[in-house]
């Protein structure tokens, strides 16, 4: 596990070093963007609608009972943009995209495609890893913006139509407008970007280090998914803590 961590950091550094080549690889990055977006957009939509909805459903009655139903929009929106959208979209991308990346690179490793690239003096990091990591770290923040909007909508629908909550649309969105500022959204975007880079690096690393023939591919995929999830949840805490001083209204 710790040797893996070292290797992953090295892989990350070589991706950073390869960044100037990103423009050259734009076609591959474009293909990856399309694939990843395609695989995750619809799911992201459904997922965020229901997350927003359940947030409203859980907290709405309590707030209304205490006479602060008008703050419901604020609560749903903040929870969504600072915490749930980044984490849930990252988890979705791990399952839909990260696992496929690990499997694809794993089979390329097992079937000697990576060796063949090396004999053609083509660096697998530039050719395979850079486009994937670049694409995934653009897609996840975009998904988060999207998830925010859909999640707020889900919350609003539940708030308006549930009898025990019955907070009207106008009140809900007014509360979002007053309570959420750009900083909160950016906070979530920063987190999601870091998660995305981690997912890309972990999944590509697992794929590239697949060993033991076709059976090894399955092992790599499992490890890629589990390691990504664990790291996302740990980093979530760390990043939240680190970003705390930048919140208005809070201080160290």
């Amino acid at each position, binding site marked *: 596990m710790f040797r893996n961590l070292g290797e992953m950091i090295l892989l990350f550094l070589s991706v950073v070093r390869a960044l100037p080549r990103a423009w050259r690889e734009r076609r591959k990055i474009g293909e990856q963007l399309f694939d990843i977006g395609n695989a995750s957009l619809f799911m992201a939509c459904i997922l965020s609608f229901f997350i927003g909805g359940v947030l409203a459903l859980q907290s709405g009655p309590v707030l209304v009972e205490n006479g602060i139903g008008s703050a419901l929009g604020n609560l749903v929106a903040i929870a969504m943009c600072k915490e749930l959208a980044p984490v849930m979209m990252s988890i979705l991308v791990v399952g839909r995209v990260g696992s496929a990346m690990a499997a694809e690179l794993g089979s390329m490793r097992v079937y000697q495609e990576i060796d*063949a690239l090396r*004999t053609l003096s083509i660096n697998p990091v530039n050719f395979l890893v850079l486009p994937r990591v670049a694409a995934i770290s653009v897609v996840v923040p975009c998904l988060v913006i999207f998830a925010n909007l859909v999640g707020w909508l889900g919350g609003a629908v539940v708030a308006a139509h549930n009898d025990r909550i019955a907070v009207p649309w106008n009140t809900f969105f007014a509360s979002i407008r007053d309570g959420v500022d750009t900083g909160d959204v950016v906070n979530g975007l920063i987190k999601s970007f870091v998660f995305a880079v981690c997912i890309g690096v972990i999944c590509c690393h697992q794929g590239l280090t697949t060993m033991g023939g076709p059976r090894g591919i399955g092992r790599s995929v499992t490890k890629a998914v589990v390691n990504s999830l664990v790291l996302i949840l740990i980093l979530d805490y760390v990043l939240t803590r680190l970003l705390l001083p930048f919140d208005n209204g809070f201080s160290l």
Partner: protein
Amino acid sequence: MTASPATGLPLSVRQLTKSYGGRLVLQSVTLEIAAGEIFVLMGPSGAGKSVFLRHLIGLEEPDSGEILVAGARVGPEAAETKHRLAMVFQSGGLLNSLNVEENVGLYLSEHRLQPPAEIARIVAEKLSLVRLGPDDARKYPSELSGGMRKRVAIARALVVEPQLILYDEPTSELDPLVSLTIGREIVNLNQRTGATSVVVTHHRDLAFGIADRIAFLADGQILALGTPAEIRASTVPLIQQFLTAEFK
């Protein structure tokens, strides 16, 4: 890059030893391959021939010993040296996400060595050398037969205009006629560019037809090394069995 006057690279292997999980696969193999030579490696299945080739191009790290290509030590980064090296893998090693044309032109397109139109011309030329037509060029590796894949892999290696080329069983899945073509192509490339060629094969006719020298590898050791005539005259029992085995 129009095939800059390529000259073959000399190769020397010293005391090369490699084991996997405690099992010795190569035991202190030492040999010299001259620039421009066609060197054939034969031996029983599992003798370590593919492992040996992978070391020559830096895909494996020796446990001990060293490999020098043109006097420079081959390390893990060897695949990215200034020399032009190429390897035809036993299983082809084609990229499944690219079609035949893109696979064959990969070296030129990735390194931006030629404009696209020129790449297309070179690719078509190399494909026709291995008897593949324009229809095949648009296919994906998964739509090809084993033998076709092998031929694409050979075309891809030829595009590099290599100074050192390693063939791992180039004719193992090919019919006798195509094998003959491939054998001729190995010799052609060698005569045209002086590329040092190392060929692993089980195909006796091919081996004796093209080789300048033949080495016989068994259990990770060189049993015999010499010109085809010397190998034929060898008195080592295993080699004699290898050379005379026939269905009756």
